[in-house]
């Protein structure tokens, strides 16, 4: 198994490189001059030409955007930032900095990306892990009961709700969760991470986390409910279940040891496969609940075309997905000894 883990980790690296390289190259191909943003940013922050020149390290006189001098300054900056080099050289230079935790600065605000990224990643991990656990919980319970009582009223209601959940866009569901539980009932806050006035202790943060996790967990449970129902139904028809009953085992034992144990184990694979969707979908819930994670940042950066933030969030997302897939695979290898990875 150790060998398996080592090999999986080794495979993960080239994958990461390819994903980030494609994204990096795509963004470099984007129209628009990245250095233009720097001048615009500096100007909107009310810097004098002298300050702009100092900050950007432009030696020639910088008088302002749009003037003739701007062009030569831009050429100088391109040369200095290495934007004239081939993309793969730019990429490896960038990779070298990222490995050291330096994600550069945001194009528009010129703020360092690294520190904010570190905070937002933790937020997104918290949200997605809890929501996934809730989805799995709902999926296993509702799906198993549906299968045990196939064609009952409960089964019909669950399958109806599942169809609705598959079809309703996540953001609409999230908005209604806020309206019902925050505005109408007033049980939970409508958004944010903690009470801004008191600063927020641990329980306060938990309190603010409940609604987004609930919305995201319910929204993601539909697929798992369906999968669990099918899997349990299939297992119930297996020969060894008939044998177990025939040899007089109690129904309770047959269900827990023979049906559920075999039917539910592969759910790990399903969860693993859904990780990219969960992390991508997290953006919607972060935005509706004003819960500032990586997804929200990516969406906002895409809208503002801030490619330096986007490449940072996308790199981190890729790492997150690959890491969690790795964890899922290792767990599966651990709980199901039959699985041999050769």
């Amino acid at each position: 198994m150790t060998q398996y883990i080592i090999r999986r980790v080794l495979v993960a690296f080239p994958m990461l490189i390819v994903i980030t390289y494609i994204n990096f190259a795509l963004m470099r191909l984007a129209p628009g001059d990245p250095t233009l943003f720097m001048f615009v940013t500096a100007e909107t922050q009310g810097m004098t030409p002298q300050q702009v020149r100092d900050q950007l390290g432009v030696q020639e006189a910088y008088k302002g955007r749009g003037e003739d001098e701007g062009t030569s300054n831009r050429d100088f900056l391109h040369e200095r930032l290495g934007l004239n080099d081939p993309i793969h050289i730019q990429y490896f230079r960038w990779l070298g900095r990222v490995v050291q935790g330096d994600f550069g600065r945001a194009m528009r605000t010129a703020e360092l990306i690294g520190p904010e990224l570190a905070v937002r990643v933790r937020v997104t991990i918290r949200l997605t892990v809890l929501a996934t656990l809730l989805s799995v919980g709902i999926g296993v319970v509702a799906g198993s009961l549906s299968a045990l009582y196939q064609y009952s009223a409960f089964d019909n209601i669950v399958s109806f709700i599942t169809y609705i959940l598959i079809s309703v866009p996540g953001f609409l569901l999230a908005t209604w969760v806020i309206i019902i539980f925050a505005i109408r009932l007033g049980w939970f806050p409508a958004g944010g991470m903690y009470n801004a006035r008191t600063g927020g202790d641990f329980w306060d943060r938990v309190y603010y986390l409940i609604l987004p996790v609930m919305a995201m967990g319910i929204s993601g449970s539909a697929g798992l409910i369906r999968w669990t129902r099918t899997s349990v139904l299939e297992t119930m028809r297996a020969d060894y279940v008939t044998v177990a009953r025939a040899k007089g085992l109690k129904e309770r034992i047959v269900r827990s040891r023979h049906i559920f144990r075999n039917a539910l184990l592969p759910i790990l694979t399903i969860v693993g496969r859904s990780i990219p969707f969960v992390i991508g979908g997290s953006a919607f819930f972060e935005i509706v609940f004003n819960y500032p994670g990586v997804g929200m940042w990516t969406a906002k950066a895409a809208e503002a075309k801030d490619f330096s933030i986007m490449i940072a969030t996308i790199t981190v997302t890729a790492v997150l997905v690959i890491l969690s897939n790795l964890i899922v695979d290792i767990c599966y290898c651990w709980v199901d000894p039959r699985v041999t990875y050769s």
Partner: protein
Amino acid sequence: MTAQNENASDTAQTLTIDRPSLAAQNFRLFLQNPGAVGGVIFMLVVTVSAILAPWLTPWEPHEIDVQAIRKPPSVDHWLGTDLTGRDMLTRILYGGRVSLLIGLAAVIIRTVIGLIVGSLSGYFGGVIDFFGQRIVDIMIVFPDIFFLLIVIAIIGPTPWTLLIALGFLSWPFDARIFRSQVLSIRELDYILAARSIGTTTGRIVRQHVTPNLMPLVLVNMTLNIGVAIIAEAGISFLGLGVQPPTPSWGNMITSANNLSLIQRFWWLWVPPGGVLVGTVISLNLIGDALRDILDPRWRAS
């Protein structure tokens, strides 16, 4: 069926003569599924009315009426008017053209690419399979929505970018499914038999592989149109979908998806939301019914 089984003891001849064609049997099974029939009717109504939109409504989708802003449903405006006084029903009909077109076109693109990559990978194996599967692995692992955001941020949000991006980003899922299906078909005894008597690859693919693959392709396409329509709504919500004033179901829901509007003016979001949800549910009902009918492994139950 029971009648046929009783007759079976008589003569084998009557049995073969009386039996309806497979297509007719399947069609009858489909009609016995009320959800699927309801789904087909809903989809027909929605599609036909979207196509006939200009002849069904007296209003124009971009026609602004400052006299009638956010008016509830009335005789003039059956589903009320939106934030700038445009007729909601008209915009839903025209929005249906955009949303359905995006759904259908994206699915055709992903299915065609998925079929090509998946069947080449599955049938020939070897180097083609290795590289095909590595591309698939990489594309599946990365969240589609973020790829979409990059592509749209670079090219700009038009309906065409959206459907092309949706199609080109989601084919790996199809490729993976089709590949495993082709792999299992390839090992079937009659394919081996066909190969052993010297049938050409082209003929095997046409006569044996394709017919076995088609049910899966059909079911998959039906379900994925819904996926693409929801994706369009999501991207609209992130501000990079179909840009107003062009209506799509997604951007109509998004424009009303605000804590105050959504509570005060139900007609701004219930009709477009209802049509979108109805469409996706219908497609799922149809897809599930097709799967139950066309996949023999399921028919036993």
